[in-house]
């Protein structure tokens, strides 16, 4: 065997969320575990990867599953079983600091504070990813994808997406 669980984790950092191409699925915090079996099972799987969806209706999950096994094939590694697990429930607190920086640089304001605090969007202080001004206003709690809300900046006048706490 010429690869380890660590190699697979590294491979997973190259797989992007289809809806936010600058964010890897590891930085997004949806990979919950990688396990290699001592030997391939009857279905030919060499191990398993556990992922958890961000939102129930997230259409990216099927795509992510496909991309993982495409990447494995490209490395001539055997296929892995990609399992979906709902509990414990995904939260934006699992997003890495690196992931938050990538989001910001891409023009999406990263989640502010801990999801557990349940601050309402109307009360959240979200700095503008373009000019860093904190004079921003919520336009809509629901944005271009399930995970985002729409804000506008009152300083530079630009609208922007906010990855909302969840």
């Amino acid at each position, binding site marked *: 065997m010429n690869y380890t669980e660590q190699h697979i984790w590294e491979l997973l950092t190259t797989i992007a969320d289809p809806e936010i191409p600058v964010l890897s699925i590891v930085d997004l915090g949806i990979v919950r575990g990688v396990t290699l079996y001592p030997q391939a099972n009857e279905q030919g799987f060499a191990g398993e990867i556990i992922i958890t969806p961000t939102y129930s209706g997230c259409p990216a999950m099927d795509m992510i599953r496909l991309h993982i096994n495409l990447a494995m094939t490209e490395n001539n590694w055997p296929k892995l079983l990609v399992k979906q697990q709902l509990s414990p*429930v995904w939260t934006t607190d699992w997003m890495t600091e690196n992931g938050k920086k990538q989001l910001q640089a891409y023009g999406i304001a990263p989640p502010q504070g801990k999801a557990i605090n349940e601050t309402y969007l109307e009360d959240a202080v979200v700095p503008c990813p373009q000019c860093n001004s904190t004079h921003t206003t919520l336009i809509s709690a629901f944005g271009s994808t399930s995970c985002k809300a729409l804000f506008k900046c009152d300083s530079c006048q630009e609208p922007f997406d906010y990855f909302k706490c969840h």
Partner: protein
Amino acid sequence: MNIYWNQQWPAHIQYALFLADNALILAQQHSKWCGKGPILEQDIALSNIALDYLGQARNFYQLAAEELNQLEGVQFYTEDSLAYHRTDRNFVNLLLTELEQPNWGHCVLKTFLYSSFASLVFQKLMHIQAGELTAIAEKSNKELAYHKRWSQDWVIRLGDGTAESNTIMQQALNQIWPYAGECFIPANFETVFWQNHPSFFHELEKEWMDYLQTIFTEATLQLPAKQAWQTGGKQGIHTEQMGYVLAEMQYLQRTYPNSVW
């Protein structure tokens, strides 16, 4: 003959199908508004909410199919066969979810009633050990918090808005209210499911009604006079609307059975 509903099925499977049907039918009714919302941002909001409900429905159907397939001597079920091959008599969704949504007032009021009701049920599911059902409830509840907040704001904004918006909201409430009671009048499978928690339905009714009353008061809306509740959805006896909903939703699978992408 394919069996798509059987009262002998274990209560937790019937309960999963009830939660799945509610979410699916509401998703279908909300989806019809895609492209028709009053402004772009709100159009997107309602479409996002529909997507959340569709995702929740898929999780509940997948669970129900998995559990059904472990029973002896049953046909093979999938999330798709449960959604597309059942007739109106097999669906056990609340009548509330299938009602027409002729204007924005109906859209936000149905979302408000359903999300606040479901959120209470899911919170209680999170406190009992119901396995994967509890996991789906926990996942869904985070999404429902956003739906509840959004629809509550709309109910208040339109109710306590102009004379015209108040009239439209009040009319929507008068039409939809008779269907609210079905939420806390238990069907047989619910009574069995919650048998170790006998006060469940009583508490649900009280907590839900207190919350609704608070918001309707703030919205300056009057609850209609007490009347008999409209029921039957959970027994598969639906309103006329349900036939139209299913005809549209199931059209492709009825015309080309078992076709896939």
